[in-house]
């Protein structure tokens, strides 16, 4: 009896321990995954698409979603352009501080903001999404570059004063864009709600109208949708679940396809985009050089040179990749 009791106690203890270890290992795994994904975001890899961006492009299968993302990107870029100008203005009051490089970065960001504003025309979904990711990647790199340079020139006092100024800029200058984003978000939600209703076989134009007009919040819209669905029979609910699952899978598959297509030709596109931006910056610099009151034509010219240098670096990387690929092909 004693021996069997000891064995049973041992088994029980092992089971408890293993279940805790199992649970703990899940937590550790997810923590590791988060760490590695954060690290991959930090590495400046031209072809990498971060988790945030992957999630953002999922709504771009609907035209209102694509428009909303384009406007949001424009909003975020223009916000940083205005912040950047405020930083340059503050630094301009200091002696022995040169802001030429910062001015060049802000001008390049402005070009990206304008590009984001034009992103959605009649392009196909794939092109729009790739365009969105291209602009976002370029803008993120520029923000990082600006931050690195600006932080060396700003004191803590400057930063605090600027943060106060940034909040005022957000409220005033970007109000119109904010309104357009809200409108596209409402239209996107109305379209999504229409699809849920269609999948459940229900019709309720009133809910859709209220969502479009902004009369009800997301929470209220969900409650009203659920009220429609609650009265359905169990089999109908099962069919609805299947349809919603299918739609979600389709969205994810489309997103995966677009992201992998993005990676394939990113370097080529990055090179072309940099060439275009170098031309644009030179053009702007030349225009401003004619005006004696404009101080930043030099900044634009220098930035154009830097952009052209970056383009050369990407072209070199492309050549290496092509050589490696053909080398592997030959050996096979």
């Amino acid at each position, binding site marked *: 009896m004693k021996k069997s009791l000891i064995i049973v106690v041992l088994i029980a203890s092992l089971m408890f321990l293993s279940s805790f270890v199992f649970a703990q290992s899940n937590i550790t795994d997810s923590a590791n995954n988060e760490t590695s994904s954060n690290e991959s975001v930090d590495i400046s890899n031209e072809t990498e698409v971060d988790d945030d961006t992957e999630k953002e492009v999922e709504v771009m299968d609907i035209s209102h979603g694509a428009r909303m993302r384009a406007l949001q990107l424009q909003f975020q870029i223009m916000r940083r352009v205005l912040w950047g100008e405020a930083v340059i203005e503050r630094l301009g009051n200091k002696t022995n501080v040169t802001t030429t490089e910062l001015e060049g970065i802000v001008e390049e960001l402005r070009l990206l903001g304008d590009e984001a504003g034009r992103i959605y025309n009649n392009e196909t979904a794939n092109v729009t999404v790739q365009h969105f990711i291209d602009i976002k990647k370029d803008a993120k790199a520029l923000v990082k570059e600006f931050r690195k340079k600006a932080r060396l020139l700003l004191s803590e006092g400057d930063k605090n004063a600027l943060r106060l100024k940034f909040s005022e800029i957000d409220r005033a200058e970007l109000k119109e864009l904010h309104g357009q984003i809200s409108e596209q978000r409402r239209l996107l939600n109305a379209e999504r709600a229409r699809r849920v209703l269609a999948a459940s076989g229900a019709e309720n134009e009133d809910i859709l109208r209220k969502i479009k007009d902004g009369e009800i919040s997301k929470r209220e819209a969900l409650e009203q949708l659920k009220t429609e669905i609650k009265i359905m029979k169990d089999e109908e609910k099962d069919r609805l679940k299947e349809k*919603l699952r299918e739609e979600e899978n389709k969205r994810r598959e489309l997103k995966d396809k677009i992201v992998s297509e993005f990676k394939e030709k990113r370097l080529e596109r990055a090179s072309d985009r940099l060439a275009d931006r170098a031309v644009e910056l030179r053009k702007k610099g030349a225009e401003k050089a004619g005006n004696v009151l404009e101080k930043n034509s030099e900044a634009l010219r220098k930035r154009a040179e830097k952009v052209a240098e970056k383009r050369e670096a990407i072209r070199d990387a492309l050549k290496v990749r092509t050589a490696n690929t053909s080398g592997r092909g030959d050996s096979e």
Partner: protein
Amino acid sequence: MGIKKIIFWIVILLILLGVVYYGANMLGIGSSDSQGSGQEGVVGDAETNSLIEESLIDDTDDVELGEELI
């Protein structure tokens, strides 16, 4: 009832609890993923509910441009 019997039943109970806990872990029951949103008006199982809720996007949903400027 002797002390041995009490220990025996406690151990059996522990084993059962272990099995239930392990099984629940494997099935993901009780994990944060499977818990509802906490909102009222659940219309079916957790998956249907979450599919419906995820169909609409939040006002706070935005493009993430990474670091701040300063």
